[in-house]
Structure formats: C-alpha cells, structure tokens
C-alpha cells in the first residue's frame, strides 16, 4: 500500500518534470528560432582589413584542402609588372617564371599581359581558385604594395563548423561571424570603388556588393 502510494508520487513528479522539460525545450527552441527572423544564420568569414596573412588558413582548416582561398580585387590592383604578390623579392628583377622566383607554391596565380602604356607594361593577375590553397604567401607579398589580394572563406567549400578551427588559430582576430545573406567581406578601400562601379550598372560589381557585408 505504502509502496504503491510512493510509486504514484514518484510517477506524478516524473510526469511534472517531463512536462516542464518539454515546455522549456519548446520555449528555448522558440526563443532561439525567433531570432532567426531578424538575420540569416551565422557563417565564418575573414575580415581582410584585419588579416595579416600568417598562413594558418592553409593548415588549420578541417578540410584537407582549406575552404579559404585568395581573391583578387582588380579594382585595387596596380597591374604591376614588378608584382610583389607574384614574384619573390629576389625574383622581382629577373622576373623569370622559375619556381624559386614565384611566391605561389601551387601556381595558382595566372599572369597575363594586358597593355603597354607610356613605356610601362601592365599585367593582369588572376587567381586559379581550384589550385589556390589559401596559404596567403601572395597576400603578404601584395600587402607591400596595393594589397589587392585578400583571403576569403569560400562558402561553396566551408562546412561551417561550430567553432572554426582556423578562427581559433588566427593571430589577428580576423575571423568574424557574418550573416548567410551577405557572407563575404571586402577591404574598406575597395568598398567605395565597388559601389561606384555598381552605380554605373555594372552587374558583376552589383552581384559582389550584394554578397558583401559592410560595417558602415
């Protein structure tokens, strides 16, 4: 008799706890999901103005081939013949294309002649994204001049880990959370140029601007 009563009481308590548990789980879920309405979910991205090109992106990503790749912002590029992002400092003078004179370890930068003007030759540098490993060698080199090369987390590759392993290893706190609506960043300098371009009905620039989160 006594034990039966006790079981009942225990059962009642368990029922109460269960209902409370389900209700609080629902409330928590609703609370967290409600915030979803205000913005897209968070993704990882690199703030190129903070990036110091340490090279951790290439080695710390959980993917075999890092999700971080280099992006060339042509509107900041000087199209230099003596490109410090393409050549090593030793290779600048000879401008051979021997491996020891090139910064990129995977030959992911393609140099093409554009035009000769006022005794100067101009070259365009494009990134072969498939070959790029995000090592930031070129980013560091280019930072000596215009700094048009910068790293970005490519969201067709990023698996959006809970805690980005590169963010943990990043020495300059350059990893930021961005909304999935606008999951990329541009350098502050490039932002104005890109907006001007977009204003002139440049579709590519408009598309890029739409993908970029700006702080201002």
């Amino acid at each position: 008799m006594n034990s039966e009563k006790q079981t009942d009481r225990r059962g009642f308590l368990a029922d109460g706890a269960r209902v409370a548990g389900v209700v609080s789980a629902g409330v928590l879920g609703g609370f967290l999901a409600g915030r979803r309405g205000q913005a897209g979910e968070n993704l990882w991205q690199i703030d190129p103005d903070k990036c110091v090109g340490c090279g951790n992106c290439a080695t710390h990503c959980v993917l075999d081939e890092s999700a971080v790749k280099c992006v060339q912002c042509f509107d900041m590029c000087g199209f230099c013949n003596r490109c410090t992002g393409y050549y090593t400092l030793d290779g600048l003078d000879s401008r051979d294309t021997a491996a020891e004179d090139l910064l990129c370890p995977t030959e992911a930068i393609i140099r093409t002649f554009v035009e000769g003007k006022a005794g100067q030759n101009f070259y365009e540098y494009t990134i072969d994204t498939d070959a790029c490993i995000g090592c930031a060698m070129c980013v560091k080199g280019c930072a000596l001049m215009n700094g048009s090369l910068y790293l970005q987390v490519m969201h067709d590759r990023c698996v959006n880990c809970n805690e980005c392993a590169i963010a943990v290893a990043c020495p300059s706190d350059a990893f930021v959370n961005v909304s999935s609506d606008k999951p990329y960043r541009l350098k502050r300098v490039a932002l104005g140029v890109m907006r001007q371009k977009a204003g002139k009905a440049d579709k590519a620039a408009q598309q890029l601007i739409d993908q970029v989160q700006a702080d201002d």
Partner: protein
Amino acid sequence: MTKKFRLRVAALLVVALVGGILMGGVMADESSELMFPVPEFSDHPIPTASVPEVQGEVTPVLDVAILFVALCLASYFTLVSRSRRNVLLLTIASLLWFGFWRQGCVCPVGATQNVALAIFDPTYVVPLTVVAFFILPLVFTLFFGRTFCASVCPLGAMQELLAVRSIRVPRWLDHSLGLVAYIYLGAAVIFAATKTGFIICRYDPFIPFFRLGANTDMLLFGSCILLISVFVGRPYCRYLCPYGAILRVLSCFSKWRLSIPPDTCINCQLCEDVCPYGAIHPPTVTQSPERRRKGKRRLVTALMLAPVVVLVFWWLGTALAVPLSQWHPESRLAEQVRLEELGVAESTTEASDAFRGSGRSVEELYQSALSRRDDFVTLGGLLGAWTGLVIGFKLIYLSVRRRRDDYQADRAGCVSCGRCYWYCPVEKVRLGLIADVSEALPDGRMPTGPLVQLTVGGKKS
C-alpha cells in the same frame, strides 16, 4: 572696370583654389590608399572579382530529418522490438553517417555551446539545424530514455563498438569520475557564453578519427580514449560527455525506458555481469534496523553538508579567475604584450605582431583583459558553486536508499544499448531461440545465490 575685373579674377582664383583642394581631397581619398593607381586601359575593362554562393554539403532539413528518423528507430528498437541486433546495426549506421560521412559536425554534444552562446549573446544567430540537434535528443530522452546515446550519437557509437573486454569500475570511482562530466558542462557553457572558445569541439577525442586528421595532442588523447574504451565501457560518455550529463538527468524522468521485465525476471544475474557500463543494479537485500538508522544519519549529514560544499567550492571558484580568463585568446595576448612592454618576453608572437599592426592601443587591450578577469571572478564563482552543487547532489543521492525487488537498469546510467537483451534467457525464450531459460544459463544452473562468472562480451552462449 579694372577693379571689377580684378575682383572676378580673385573670385575665380578662390573658387579654383577651393575647388582644387576639394577635388584633390576627393582624388586623394580614392588613390592615396593605393600605392600604385589602377591603370586605365584602352580596350580592357577592369574585371570584378566573383565569389561563390553559399552551399552546404547536405541540406539542413535533411540533416534534421535523418536525426529524427534515427532517434525514432533507436527508440523503437530498444523499447518495442527489444532487439540488440537492430540497435547494433543502427549504431554502425550512425557511426558511418554522422561520424565518418558528416565528420561529427553538427552534433548535439557541441550544439550545447552554440545554444549557450545564443542565449548570452543576442547578436549571435544560431542555425536552426543546431537548435534542432540540441533539442530533439532531449525531448526523446524525456520520453524514451537515453536512446540517443545508444545508437544515434557517433561518439557513443565508436565506443560502443569497442567495448569488448569491459571491466567493472569500482562504484566509488564510477561515481566520482561521473562528476567530471557536469563540471565539464559548466566550464563549456561559461567558455561558450564568454566567447572564449568551444572547448567541447576543440577537445573532442573522436574528431581526429572522423576527420582523419588532427594535431598530435588530440590524436594521442583520442587514441587513449579509444584504448581505454576497450576495457572501460564508454569512458567519454560516462565521465566526460557534457551532453550526456544533461541526458543523464533527463533520463531519470523518462516516461518509458529500457527495462528488465520484473514479472518474468529469473534473477540469473547475466544482465548485470554483461552490462559494460555498470548500469544494472541487483535487487536489494533487506537491511537491519541498525544499518537503516545509520543510513538515515548519513542522509542528514549529506543534506547539511551540501550547502557548505557549495559555499566552499564557490569560494574556490572565485580564486580560479586568472587561469580561467587565460583561456581567452585576448587575455593571453594582453599578457604577452605586457611581457613585451616590460622587455622580458623572449620573442614576439604572431598574435602580438598582428596586434602591433592593428593600431589598437595597449591601454585598451589591458582594460579589456582586466575587465574580463573581473567577469571571470563571478563566472569562476558560479562554476565553483555548480561543482559544489553537483557534489552535494551526488552525496545526497548516494545516501538515499532505494528498494529494488528485481534487477533494474539504472535510470541515469543506462544508455539503452540493449546488450542485456542479447544475454537475457527470458528474452531468448521470447524470441523463440531456446525452449527453456535453463538452456541459456552456464551449466544449466539456476543461479539464485553467488555470482555467475561469465566473461563480459565473450561467448554468446
């Protein structure tokens, strides 16, 4: 006339000058940031960079749907069909899908931190998948027990498959090590909420195997855990897993759970021997009044001791402010910069070099680090109090005597793996594998008294 002309010239000059300055200003704004201006080509427009659209590997809806189906199957297999074989198959499937294919991310264990961060930081938008991954197993546990641990969690699955030569962990050790999971949970929540880091993910011992890559420390740690799990059943689940700690509590209130049917139990003790997790308790023997009185006195002591323990640990926790805050990268940076300023640092670090280049002032960095240390006095105190609370509860829990007439699975400790079904003679009769229970017992003996020695995980009789 000449005067007027002069005035006009002067006005023009002023306009030109002002205009020039303004123009120059605008020009400077656009080009001064660049060392070399972007050239203008005759027939080559400057291209625009393009970046790829967001695309995940699997759609989030599919992820959640698979989790839901797996949880339903796990609950069905453990509670309705009572089939160890099916549970085992599901375990393998979960290990392959959630573990090796999805590489252990997103998982409910780590999702705990996202949820903690989302609660404390209103700017952080947690993905709905993560919320679903956190909440679904909790709700299932409230109704069906820890079926998630049994065969859905990839971390559990890995250990489950390795638990082949389990030894019995002494009860005192089992209980005290079990507390670590709760402390780990507290620390993980605090570190996630302060954006210090997601320690559960960082120190997940199975990730090196799921992703086939890790640094040496984690590989060693992971290997140790795997090696231990051969001899001690599910060491991570029982003694470390923070999510398991939550499920443990919830499972105590579950509506249904894995059970050994009392009316048909023949008290053969096989299930107790075979459970690698020490989660099956034998029936209790009636106690003498003397011992009962002693037990009551112990309960009173535990009840009185609990608040003291909480206070002591709260005080100890506040003393941990410095080491705790050092987990935050910015605090470590501040320390390094301070050493450099004092001239005692051996060399600069990547982080301190980056800091020098960022233009942030040293004072600001120090202030930020100091205020974080103050925060961690409170947080450390809370962590300490939480630790004390857990210890206090454990003491009380251990002092309360429960009466059991039959063999019973521990409400908290049972992970619903269903191994006991596999060995239970009654189950074998139910499945029609044998005609009589005695056939499944060693030497055809009806065990009523002493322990039946049976190698755990050994012969399948």
